[in-house]
């Protein structure tokens, strides 16, 4: 007798994603010159391969587990499963599909979901409402924002999907890490009961060790960005954000970062800038725009503006100790979770975020900051002006603030964003 999961595709959006990535990758390979946007070429190649692997595993009947990006993907490799990051899926589709994720935002909004919530969750919620995703379970920490507490109950109470919620405390105190470590352990055990598997901590350890290896390469690339001109193209920020989810805990991630490091080193030696000439060095302390990845390239080539890094590319957790006992590893996993991009800034007062931004501006010789104020992120809604004042007073550089939805072009279009940045750039030059 054929089992239900063998008849139905439970991850249709991954099929869509695979086709979108394949199409884009093929264009990149066939149209761009050999040296054109290497991060895009490499990133798409590896992500395509991993998504294909997920599709095959789903066909084998492995459980489909949704997770928040604040619950690192590699933690799910304690199980044989198909991980689906709720937020990354919305945004990768937003970047690659001709209509973005908008049809799915509309589905869930028409169902009553408030327009001002985060589109990163709205997309996958819309897909799940339409049964394009059929999750066996979902796991999310109680972080980093109201959208998480508000949106995930939809999966639990309307779609009746088991949602496991390790509690992530606000504020980083001594007691926070053992508490969260225990919560992660309890969460993994509960998840195991739901999907009928025991957490395999040896497998988990191996996935974490891959991440530990990636860390040192990430730091080398990060250091190279201090050079003038910046030897890493803007598109790397987008691809690294995607890699941090889809390639997490997998050997492909090491390869991706090694390849990118090699390119960066070569450019560093030759003092080359991807766009020809670096005129402005910008830091985007929050997110880049996902619905229009071409903006990265436009900034490099048209304005000579480097995005040294965005929020997904300057927050690195220290490697986790895997050589000791399970408790030690869980403690390290808790630290990593609390240091994850956006969680790090949300699980504490924003003083250290401001200090870090000031420090980064100095260390990386930034000319300006560009703050994308995303409609979903209320936890950052009180930060921009304080940051602007600190950058002005302590570094003497300006900050551009753009209100937008990073995953939905209908709120602030790509054209308007470009115009704003162009005008801002003119004042800098």
């Amino acid at each position, binding site marked *: 007798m054929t089992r239900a999961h063998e008849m139905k595709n439970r991850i249709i959006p991954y099929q869509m994603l695979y086709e979108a990535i394949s199409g884009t990758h093929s264009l990149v390979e066939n149209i761009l010159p050999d040296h054109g946007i290497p991060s895009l070429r490499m990133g798409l190649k590896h992500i395509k391969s991993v998504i294909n692997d997920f599709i095959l595993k789903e066909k084998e009947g492995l459980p489909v587990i949704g997770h928040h990006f604040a619950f690192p993907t590699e933690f799910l490799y304690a199980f044989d499963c198909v991980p689906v990051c709720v937020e990354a899926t919305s945004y990768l589709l937003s970047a690659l599909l001709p209509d973005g994720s908008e049809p799915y935002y509309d589905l869930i909004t028409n169902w009553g*979901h*408030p327009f001002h919530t985060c589109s990163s969750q709205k997309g996958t919620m819309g897909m799940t409402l339409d049964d394009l995703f059929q999750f066996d379970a979902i796991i999310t920490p*109680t972080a980093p924002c109201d959208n998480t*507490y508000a949106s995930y109950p939809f999966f639990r109470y309307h779609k009746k999907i088991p949602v496991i919620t390790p*509690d992530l405390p606000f504020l980083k105190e001594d007691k926070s890490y053992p508490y969260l470590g225990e919560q992660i352990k309890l969460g993994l055990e509960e998840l195991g009961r739901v999907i009928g598997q025991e957490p395999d901590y040896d497998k988990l350890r191996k996935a974490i060790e891959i991440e530990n290896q990636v860390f040192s390469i990430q730091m080398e690339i990060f250091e190279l960005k201090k050079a003038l001109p910046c030897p890493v193209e803007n598109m790397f920020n987008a691809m690294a954000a995607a890699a941090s989810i889809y390639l997490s805990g997998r050997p492909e991630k090491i390869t991706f970062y090694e390849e990118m490091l090699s390119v960066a080193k070569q450019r560093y030696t030759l003092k080359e800038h991807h766009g020809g000439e670096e005129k402005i060095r910008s830091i985007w302390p929050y997110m880049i725009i996902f619905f229009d990845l071409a903006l990265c390239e436009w900034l490099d080539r048209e304005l000579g503006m480097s995005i040294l890094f965005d929020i997904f590319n300057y927050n690195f957790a220290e490697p986790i100790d895997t050589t000791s006992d399970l408790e030690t590893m869980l403690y390290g996993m808790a630290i990593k979770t609390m240091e994850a991009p956006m969680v790090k800034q949300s699980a504490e007062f924003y003083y250290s975020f401001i200090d870090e931004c000031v420090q980064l501006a100095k260390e990386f010789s930034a000319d300006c900051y560009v703050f994308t104020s995303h409609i979903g992120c209320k936890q950052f*809604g*009180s930060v921009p002006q304080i940051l602007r004042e600190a950058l002005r007073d302590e570094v003497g550089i300006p900050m551009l603030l753009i209100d937008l939805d990073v995953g939905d072009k209908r709120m602030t279009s790509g054209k308007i964003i470009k115009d704003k940045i162009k005008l801002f750039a003119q004042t800098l030059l």
Partner: protein
Amino acid sequence: MNLKDDPFLNISNSITNPYIEDWQALNKKIIGYYCTYIPEELLHAAGILPYRIRATGNKDTELADTYMVRFTCSFVRATLDLALKGAYNFMDGFLICNSCDHSRRMFELFDLKVFNKENIDKKIDRFYLSIPHIITEEGFNWYLKEIEELREELESAYNCEISGEKLNHSIDIYIQNRDLLRDLHKLQIQEFPKITGTEALQISMANASVPKEIANKELKRILKDLKKKEEMDVSSKKRVIVVGSVVDNIDFIQLIENSGAFVASDFICFGTRNFHDSMDFDHGANPLKSLTKRLYYRISCPRMMDDHENRLNFLKAEIKHANIDGVILQRINNCDLHGCDNMLFTHELKELEIPVLNIDRESYQANNTRLQTRIEAFIEMIK
């Protein structure tokens, strides 16, 4: 008697009041807070007046808009605006918790922009409470630990001892306070009520702005006076329940009651959510634990992401209990928590076949006409 002119109810119309002045004349401290998840009884036991921050009467957010982007809650922005104008300078400290993304960031803004040395020349104490977002045994222990630490911080900041005896005494006063509010609520939900929804909100707001001993005295007086008051005939009106974001301005409830409805109950944090629990409260032996238990396990707000079912059950029970004809789900724009909770309620209440109106609004509604039209249409729609 006419509650309209009652001096206690009128406390709700302004930020400060004569009781605050009397309190400070005795050189006693006041701590401002936003959320009902903070342990008021603990502050009370330390001899501090817990004052619930609100934005009543503030019609603009001009100053606060500099520091908070337009996607943030207009209620919190309006409170910051008032604070920047000095309206909260009477406070000696503030206690913020991670209730929602809007209010939790008031810690930094109050710290940096409201109570910095340039603005105010007295010592302002800053306290923070980290509260779990799920309801579990581990979460309870975390919350209890946080409250124990807060107790130590208060003792150190104010050079006092918060003994078990003092705590038990404070808890008793607060139990009495909630009992009195529940007695008043009974007079609101009965078939021929003695107080309106507008008056109930005024009482609740005033109650959060004065010392509880005074509040209890006033609530008893009002209850006594109400005994003599004639019951209202509201049979021609539709009985509604107001659910959702904080309401700290009587204009909104008045608008509903002027549109052909009677607000028979509510599910908001200035209302039933703050006093409706009737938890067994054997607090003698370990008062801090009992206090935490009540705060943690009572009817939750949507910040608790695993408790929607209990909120739904409470709402269904209250609909039945107060004989409700229609449900008004409302949220302040950009309130993700109530927006999503209301979304689920909208679908779940279909099984009761009860009319539901889902509205979004601003904290201060400059243009009431459109809102009134929607509410009137809804009331007419109810059979």
